[in-house]
C-alpha cells in the first residue's frame, strides 16, 4: 500500500470507532457538543501520531516479550505531555474533558495501532497511518457531537441555529442518548456499506 492509502484508509475504510469498534468511552462521554468532540479527537490524534512514530522507530530495539509494556510507557509519556499542555493553554476544555484526557492512555485504538501497524512498518507509513486513523476518529467525534448538540441544545458550535420555539431534546445530552445516537449512526454506516456492496456485486 502507498503512503496515501495508509492515510486515507483511516478516513472511511477503517474509520474508528465505527469500523474499528474501539475507543468507545471517550466517544460516548465527551460528545455532548461538537467542540468537545474536536478537542478530544485532536488530543487523541496527537498521542496516536507520536506514539506510532516512536514505536515504529524503536521497533527493532524493543524485545518482543515486553513490547506491550513498552508501548504503554511510550503512549503514557505523550499523554502526560498532552495533559500538561492542555492544562496550561486550554484550561476550560481540560476541565470539561476531565478524566478522559488521562484515559487516552488506555484508548484501545492507540495500543491497537501500535501493536497491529507501527511495530511492523516503517516510520513514514506509521506516521501516515496514525494521522489518518486520528483524523478519522476526530471526524467521527465531530459528527456525533454535532448531532447531539443540534438535537440536544439546538446549537452548533455554540451558535443557535434551530428555529425559534424549538424545544431542545434534552435526552440526547444525557448518557442514554449517547448510546442510542452512536448505535443509530453505526447502523447508518452499516446500511451505506451494504448498499455499496450490493451495487458493487450487481456490476
Amino acid at each position, binding site marked *: 500500500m502507498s503512503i496515501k492509502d495508509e492515510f486515507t484508509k483511516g478516513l472511511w475504510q477503517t474509520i474508528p470507532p465505527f469500523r474499528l469498534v474501539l475507543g468507545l*468511552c471517550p466517544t460516548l*462521554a465527551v460528545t455532548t457538543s461538537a467542540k468537545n468532540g474536536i478537542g478530544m479527537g485532536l488530543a487523541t490524534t496527537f498521542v496516536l501520531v507520536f506514539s506510532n512514530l516512536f514505536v515504529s522507530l524503536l521497533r527493532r530495539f524493543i524485545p518482543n516479550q515486553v513490547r506491550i509494556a513498552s508501548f*504503554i510507557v511510550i503512549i503514557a509519556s505523550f499523554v502526560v505531555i498532552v495533559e500538561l499542555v492542555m492544562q496550561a493553554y486550554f484550561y476550560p476544555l481540560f476541565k470539561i474533558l476531565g*478524566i478522559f484526557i488521562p*484515559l487516552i492512555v*488506555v484508548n484501545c485504538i492507540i495500543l491497537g495501532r501500535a501493536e497491529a501497524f507501527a511495530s511492523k512498518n516503517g516510520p513514514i507509513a506509521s506516521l501516515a497511518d496514525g494521522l489518518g486513523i486520528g483524523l478519522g476518529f476526530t471526524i467521527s467525534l465531530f459528527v456525533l457531537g454535532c448531532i447531539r448538540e443540534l438535537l440536544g441544545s439546538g446549537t452548533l458550535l455554540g451558535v443557535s441555529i434551530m428555529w425559534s420555539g424549538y424545544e431542545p431534546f434534552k435526552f440526547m445530552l444525557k*448518557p442514554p442518548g*449517547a*448510546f442510542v445516537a452512536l448505535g443509530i449512526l453505526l447502523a447508518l454506516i*452499516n446500511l451505506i456499506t451494504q448498499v455499496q456492496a450490493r451495487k458493487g456485486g450487481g456490476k
Partner: protein
Amino acid sequence: MTDFILLMISAILVNNILLIRFLGNCPFLGVSRNMDTATGMGMAVIFVLTLAGTITWLVHTYILIPLGIEYLRTIAFILVIATLVQFVEMVLQKTAPALYEALGIFLPLITTNCAVLGVAIINIEEQYDLITSIFFSFASAAGFALALVLMAGLRQRFALVGIPKPFEGTAIGLVTAGLIALAFSGFMGLV
C-alpha cells in the same frame, strides 16, 4: 457506616460506571454476547479493580506525593495496573488453577479496561481516604459486573429475534445499552 452504604448504592446504581460515567465500554460491548463470558469478565474486574484501587491509592499517597511528582500519576498508575494484572495472573496460575481457568483469558484484557484506571483516578480526584477508596473501587466494579450481566442476558435473546440487517452486532448492542442506561437513570435522586 451509612456513608459507606450510600456511597456503594451511588456507585452501583446511580452513577453506574458503565452506563452513566462511560468507563469500560469496549469490554462491555465486546464480551456481552454470552452469559458465561460476561460473568467471568465481571468477576475478574471486581477482583482486579478492588486491588488496583487500593494499590494505586497507596502509591499516590506514599510515593508520588512525598517525592512531589504527582504529574507522573498517569504513567505511574498504568504501570502499577499492568504489573498488578500480570502478577495476579501468575499468582492465580500457581495457587488457584480453577479460578485461573475461569478468569484467565480476561485478565490481560483488563490492563486496557479504562474502568480500572478511571476509578483509580476518581479515587484521587475526589480525595477519598483509603477505606473509602477500597469501598468505592469494589462498588464500581460490582456496578460494572451488574450492567455487564444484564446486558448479556438481553443480548442472548437477540439470537432468537429478527434484527434489521444494518443494526446487527454492535449497533443493536449500543441501542440496548442506551435503554438500560435509561432504566438506570430512574435511580437518579435516590442518594
